[in-house]
């Protein structure tokens, strides 16, 4: 039976982006955050993580962070394919523009979920295994999927609009940095934060992803996480629409 076009594209995207160099960035960076920040701040933030320590608190945050990393993979795929001629080559092959886009999106989700699973496994070695309910697992999967699509769309938008390699890399680094540290990945949203930073936290979709995954991880889901996921879904639809529009209008190559 012939393999559908979309699966072939997902296979190709996965194979090309899982070389050792890419994996070091994709999994190594979050793993280092987990280990060094986790143990480093353990003594300072002993009360965090429902009494299980900062490492436990950080674990769902780092799982959520995988959505951002997956998004950067998605954006970089389009960027590299435009820059190095593969987008034009694929589009004179048996694929449509929409199939190519869906291929990137599904690959991003795959990377997001896969990365989160690796971080969960690593954390279970460091802090032991906890119990996550079936609902919790569902919320984790759904939230990281949604987050991966949001950040994948955001980076696709950037890679469709930007024409310079330096500009693309700078924007990518800036996005990772700001989104990561202006969220609840590493620390809770405390009342002592300056208003501007608090607003930034509230606007940052990664905060919603981190809060929902954390609620699921500690089996402490509340209606707040439900509302946050709803907002995230709406934001995802908007950014996905903008990304598709920019991508459909963009040149297929940098020539």
């Amino acid at each position, binding site marked *: 039976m012939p393999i559908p076009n979309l699966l072939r594209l997902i*296979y190709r995207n996965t194979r090309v982006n899982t070389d050792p160099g890419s994996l070091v960035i994709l999994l190594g960076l979050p793993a280092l955050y987990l280990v060094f920040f986790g143990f480093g701040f353990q003594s300072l933030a002993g009360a965090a993580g429902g009494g299980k320590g900062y490492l436990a608190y950080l674990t769902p945050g780092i799982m959520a962070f995988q959505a951002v990393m997956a998004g950067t993979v998605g954006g970089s795929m389009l960027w590299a394919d435009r820059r*190095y001629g*593969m987008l*034009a080559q694929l*589009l*004179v*092959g*048996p694929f449509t523009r929409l199939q190519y886009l869906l291929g990137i999106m599904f690959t991003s989700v795959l990377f997001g979920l896969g990365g989160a699973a690796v971080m969960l496994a690593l954390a279970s070695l460091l802090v032991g295994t906890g119990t996550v309910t079936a609902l919790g697992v569902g919320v984790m999967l759904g939230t990281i999927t949604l987050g991966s699509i949001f950040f994948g769309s955001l980076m696709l938008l950037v890679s469709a609009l930007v024409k310079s390699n330096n500009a693309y890399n700078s924007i990518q680094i800036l996005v990772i940095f700001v989104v990561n540290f202006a969220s609840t990945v590493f620390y809770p949203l405390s009342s002592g934060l300056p208003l501007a930073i608090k607003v930034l936290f509230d606007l940052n979709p990664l905060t919603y992803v981190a809060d929902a995954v954390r609620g699921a991880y500690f089996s402490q889901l509340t209606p707040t996480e439900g509302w946050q996921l709803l907002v995230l879904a709406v934001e995802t639809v908007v950014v996905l629409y903008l990304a598709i529009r920019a991508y459909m209008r963009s040149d*297929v*190559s940098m020539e």
Partner: protein
Amino acid sequence: MSGSPLLSTPRGPAAGTAVLEVKHPHHSYDGKREALRGVSFTIRRGEVFGLLGKNGAGKSTLIKVMTTLLRPTQGSLRVLGMDPARDGQRIRQRIGVVQQGESFDFTSVQGNLDIYGILWGIPGEERARRRDALIQRFGLEDLRKRRSFDLSGGQKRRVQVAREFMHDMDILFLDEPTVGLDVIMRRSLLDSIRSEVAQGLTVVFTTHNLEEADYLCDRIAVIDDGRILVLDTLENLKRLYGGKRTIELTLGEGDAPGYFRALQERLAPTDVLTVKDRSGILLTQEPKQALSALVELGQTRAIQFEWLNIRKNTLEDVFLNSVEPGGENHADP
């Protein structure tokens, strides 16, 4: 590199069937200047059709329109009997394209071929057989584990061309495929294409290299500024221009513009003179008469010749004569 055919047979429509009908397509990248301005021709199965032209003449734009990558703003095309606007994906399943620019995945040479085979849905055993045959045919054995981005320009080009033969096709579009290849590899590639053509493959081929066009093409179109200037079979082009001689001259001191104006008046109507600064290229069927007029004028106007040369015409003269202002245009769409 040449040898047994790489692609499966039989394929495509019957011999002699029109596989590509191009009717006055226009295309503009910015909505102002048109890169393509209504070229028209028909290509039949098993034909090798050459597109010659200067840089920016519109060759690559035409290839992109024919391969459904760009949509023409006017005019129409039929590729393998289908309309690209409606059946783009079905058309692309039956064509192969080697683009002018490089295109690679970040993996090894072997990986690039493998992935391409998977993208085209080639089953496992067949994929491995083709990959190994292509690696051998294109002399890539020593490079198969090397990353594509670490290769030289010529090596990359070999991989890019080899990769396209991973799948079957009815029409192969080659946009300057031999750029960066050494002489031996270039000839081998052309021979390889010839052996596929003998099996019924149709090839559309752009090049700057006129020897290649001479060696491979059945018909040639010279394109400039988005239009076809000359289109004919190679035999006809040679017949048309082959009886003529080319006189090249460069003037020394004296009134060069006045000399060339006077010379133009003395030449036969069929003679073609192209002038650039103090140099001229004259295409003539009567070289003796042209030469005596040329020398006589030089004496009466006290002009010295720095360079004077007479030679037979080549395909290069056809090309130069077509694209230079004042050249003889012979369009036969």
